[in-house]
């Protein structure tokens, strides 16, 4: 009895790690790319919400969830470029601008998304990896969305790209030492704008996952700060894309503790258990950060490391 409950709980946790972790993965990869260029974009939270709304709306209107994902990414690209361009102006604080973008992105999504709360859009497909089992719970837990695999592949591609390609090296140089990059003839602002834009694209895709797969609907309470937690997650991952993958799974599991406990009938402290990802993020930052030195692996131009 207790044993089966434990296995249900662990299964729910595993399923949650993937299911809840996927949007974390996309947003943190986007943030990782942005921060590698030396900027920090807190506005990914707003981009996530805009992406969720755009993805849902386009999927509903066009009938194709993949078009929705693309549109979500493009909306994220647009907002990311806005962040990139305006923060290239002198004296504009990127952290403060991120907060403004959160406000604007959520406002835009709530305004334009009013009409899409009711209708149901076609959802993204998933791959039934649990086909071998007779247990319906195992089957549903191992239904893994295609976007998760794309995200995993992306983490490896970014890992390779940042190390082994000219693009990656230029981005890291701009993020680590702007003056050297400029001495070599690269325009730091342009590189950063591009990185922030692509980061926004990824965050937008993460948003589409929220509305088109899990939880799988569009409403105003869809995001619970994933976009912001991703910023902390990138610090935890020490700006390494592959570490972002593990961190995203960990955060996904943490976010699944509340629902997993509900699955075995523990309803007490629902809100408290749902706050576990925040506590975890904070704990991770307390453990990894130090006041007297910058973290190893941190891009040198990052305003986070003042």
């Amino acid at each position: 009895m207790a044993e089966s409950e434990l296995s249900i709980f662990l299964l729910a946790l595993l399923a949650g790690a993937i299911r809840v972790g996927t949007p974390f993965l996309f947003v943190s990869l986007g943030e990782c790319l942005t921060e590698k260029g030396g900027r920090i974009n807190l506005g990914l939270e707003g981009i996530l919400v805009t992406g969720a709304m755009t993805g849902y709306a386009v999927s509903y209107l066009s009938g194709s969830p993949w078009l929705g994902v693309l549109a979500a990414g493009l909306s994220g690209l647009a907002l990311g470029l806005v962040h990139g361009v305006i923060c290239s102006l002198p004296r504009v604080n990127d952290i403060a601008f991120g907060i403004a973008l959160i406000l604007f992105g959520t406002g835009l999504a709530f305004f334009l998304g009013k009409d899409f709360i009711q209708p149901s859009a076609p959802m993204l497909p998933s791959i039934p990896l649990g086909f071998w089992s007779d247990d319906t719970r195992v089957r549903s837990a191992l239904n893994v969305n295609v976007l998760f695999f794309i995200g995993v592949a992306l983490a490896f591609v970014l890992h390779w790209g940042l190390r082994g390609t000219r693009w990656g090296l230029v981005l890291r140089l701009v993020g680590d030492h702007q003056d050297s990059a400029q001495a070599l003839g690269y325009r730091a602002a342009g590189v950063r704008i591009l990185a922030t834009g692509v980061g926004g694209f990824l965050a937008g895709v993460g948003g589409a996952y929220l509305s088109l797969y899990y939880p799988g609907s569009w409403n105003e309470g869809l995001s619970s700060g994933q976009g912001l937690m991703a910023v902390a997650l990138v610090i935890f991952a020490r700006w390494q894309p592959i570490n972002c993958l593990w961190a995203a799974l960990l955060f996904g599991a943490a976010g699944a503790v509340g629902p997993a406990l509900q699955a075995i009938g523990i309803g007490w402290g629902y809100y408290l258990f749902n706050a576990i990802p925040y506590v975890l993020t904070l704990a991770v930052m307390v453990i990894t950060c130090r006041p007297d030195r910058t973290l190893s692996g941190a891009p040198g131009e990052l305003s986070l490391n003042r």
Partner: protein
Amino acid sequence: MLKPWLGRAAVLALPALPTLLAMLTTAVLFILFLLIQGQPAWQAGPLVFEGAFGSMFAWENTLMRAAPLMLTALCVALPARAGLIIIGGEGALVLGGLAAAVTPLWLPSLPAWPMLIAMGVAAMLAGGLWIGLSGWLRQKRGVNETIGSLLLSYIALAIFRHLVEGPLRDPNSLNKPSTPPLDGSYQIGVISDSFYVHWGLVAGVVACVLAWVFVRYSVVGFSLRIVGGNPRTPRMLGLPVDRLVLLTCVLGGAAAGLAGMYEVSAVQGSANTALISGYGTAGILVAFAARHNPLGIIVCAILLGGLEASGGLLQRRLGLPDATTLILQGILFINLLAWEALTRRTLDWRLWLRGHWIAAPPSRTGTTEVSHG
């Protein structure tokens, strides 16, 4: 040919130029946005004004919203003096409200005034501790205060929801989980029957004025300017940086907590989820719009309070969604920050104006200006 007084006026007005341009572009972009949406943009503008300042009722509505905004904006502006960007005011507000709501339950029955003071102290302690924790984490553990304060805010909201819907819930509050309602004598009333705004407005204005005196005229305030300006200088001077930073965080958090107390005892009558209404977030915008100047906060809080107050009117008359004011706030915030890029130019222009337009004694102003440039 040009009058010197005009030049002087221009010099005085120049620092406000980025803000004015930001408001102008915000209006243009907002109207464009509504036009693209096929909305009656030309009616929206006057309606925003009418809903905010068009009548006595509108003014009361506006000021009622401005009161907590002044206090939550201080939660951003005071730490900003020390160079911190704190955005967790919402959490401090709800915890302050909760502390105020439970104080009468846990204390023996007291007359109204001592109890209200106790409630205020409890609220300020709760808020101050919460934001103080963000400052402490930054100074002692190196945790970025922006992310840290926001995470703490999320945690505060979770604790608040848990307590209000669980252990502290009044069994009689069926549809809207709340703590037991405050006794009538512990509820804060309005300033007068002809001016239907609760006393939180006075508290907000007084807090802003006190904060202004504090940052402008006190020794601590002066030290803060050094701390906020450069991370190394204050340490060389031997200033207690950590303590100064913590102080601003605790004071800011206390202000936000006090906002929660007024929301509970003057508006809601108990602590419930209606407290989570975005005053903390809007306070960030107010503080940035005021450039973290406490007196500026009073003006900006009234403007933004008006913007929020007009949301209802836009909804009723034009059928615009309530997110309209959120978009307007977002556009405004973006423009305020973007036009900040102009600040250095305005300094140059100011020097140029002084040099060319105003017939000032050339030798004196000339030399000081060159040394500034």
